[in-house]
């Protein structure tokens, strides 16, 4: 009895949390899409600033990580493929797993670590120092003021970062392809392009946008849920990272399943 009760409560809490995320995203969407037509200008400058922090400044680390992931993928798939003498498929294995899965996912993980946590810390600190209250009492909606630019920046930058991550992954794979699988750089890239369908790339990009929404919503929500005291900021930052990673994986699973079952069987 107690066990089912606990599970029930946990489920309800989980659903309520996701509901909160959706509400936050909805309010941000309202600020971005509807409020500007009612004389409340969007903070474009803040969004650009955020996009720099979320996207451009993340490029070096994402490049490095996805380059290595590409190489690792090539090594791992070659381990299996060489038993069948099919090393020439390394290029397509890397290309498809990068674009469909690991490009968006690795980008999301890096962005969670860099930006999701930063969102929670920023809003959490503002909550603790009464800056959120100050915004409200100045008739400035914190969602419009703080959250909407973050959503906007994230929705724009996640697909860009992911595209770049896909590309770096392929480059990483080519290191192995050229050195061990008998490709030239040109032929590796050509094999990659032959293996890829547009669908592979778009499904990855759709996922990346969804990840961006999840990361922003969780980061901001955790910030707003910060209690009193500076130690609470640390707690919400940690919580933002853990919950974001979990929810990103959940969303990944849902969308991967969706894409699998809706894909035309070839």
């Amino acid at each position, binding site marked *: 009895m107690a066990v089912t009760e606990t599970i029930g409560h946990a489920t309800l809490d989980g659903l309520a949390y996701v509901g909160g995320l959706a509400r936050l995203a909805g309010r941000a969407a309202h600020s971005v899409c509807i409020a500007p037509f009612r004389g409340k200008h969007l903070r474009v400058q803040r969004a650009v600033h955020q996009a720099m922090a979320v996207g451009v400044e993340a490029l070096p680390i994402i490049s490095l990580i996805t380059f290595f992931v590409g190489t690792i993928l090539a090594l791992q798939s070659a381990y299996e493929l060489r038993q069948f003498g099919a090393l020439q498929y390394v290029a397509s294995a890397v290309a498809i797993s990068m674009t469909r899965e690991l490009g968006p996912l690795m980008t999301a993980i890096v962005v969670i670590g860099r930006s999701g946590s930063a969102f929670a810390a920023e809003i959490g600190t503002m909550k603790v120092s009464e800056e959120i209250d100050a915004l*409200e009492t100045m008739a400035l909606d914190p969602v419009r003021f703080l959250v909407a630019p973050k959503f906007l920046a994230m929705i724009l930058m996640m697909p860009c970062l992911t595209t770049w991550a896909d590309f770096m992954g392929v480059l990483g794979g080519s290191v192995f392809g050229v050195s061990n699988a008998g490709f030239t750089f040109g032929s590796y890239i050509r094999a990659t392009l032959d293996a890829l369908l547009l669908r592979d790339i778009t499904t990855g990009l759709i996922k990346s946008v969804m990840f961006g929404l999840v990361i922003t919503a969780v980061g901001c929500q955790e910030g707003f849920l910060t209690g009193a005291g500076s130690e609470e900021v640390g707690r919400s930052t940690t919580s933002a990272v853990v919950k974001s990673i979990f929810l990103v994986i959940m969303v990944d699973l849902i969308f991967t399943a969706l894409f699998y079952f809706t894909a035309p069987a070839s």
Partner: protein
Amino acid sequence: MSEANATRPMISVRDLRVNYGEREILHGISFEVLASETMVILGGSGSGKSTLLRTLVGLEKPSGGEVRVCGKNLSTLSEAEWEDLRKKMGISFQGGALFGAMTVGENVALPLREHTPLEESTIEIMIRLKLEQVGLAGFEDYLPSELSGGMKKRAAVARALAMDPEILFFDEPSAGLDPIIAAGIDNLILKLKKAFRMTIVVVTHELSSAFLIADRMILIDKGNIVAIGTPAELQASPHPRVRQFLDRVPEPEVSEELDYLQMLTEGLHGRRNA
């Protein structure tokens, strides 16, 4: 301001109750703040005075009773009415609550840029004017982190003044400041009071500052008003809690066994009722 205005209540609170979750913080309090009056809300830590302030500015929702600010019932306001009302209120928060990523000037300009169609050049002048009023002329390009505690408070007041509010709220204006700087803040409040005949509500536990700036004051204890009146009336009050607060008598140790028993069981009753 006309004579009729001077007696019009800017804030009227009737039987206000505020809960944090299950716990009731304010147990039905009533008072009025008249136009261009300086009302000081006194109380110890945990008395509910900050909750009262937060309710008056709309950061907490009343769970019972009625709050009217500028004649508007806070519980029934639409989003748009709230926005209008908020533009008439300026709040100086305890820690200043300046936005750390913006300069002092940008902080002061923020409500103007967001809510008014003023030209940038006019806003520049307004910034200088407001900062000059609080004695911070020339500090517009500093970041809040580069200011001392007292200067932050002054900058926060400048921001609260930006929209020329009708009511100015202060949360613990002298908390965490040395006596000299705190006296400077008191002077600033007195100056604003004289110069603009603004309605001012100050929440504090600093007796000296309270008696200096107040037209009338309220003493709140455990979520109830124990006394309300002019500083002289409060000074003369025989009410034991007022005397204890004004004479700085520490809370007595639990002496009576019955009281002690009651203290231990109080929570139980509360929980059973809830």
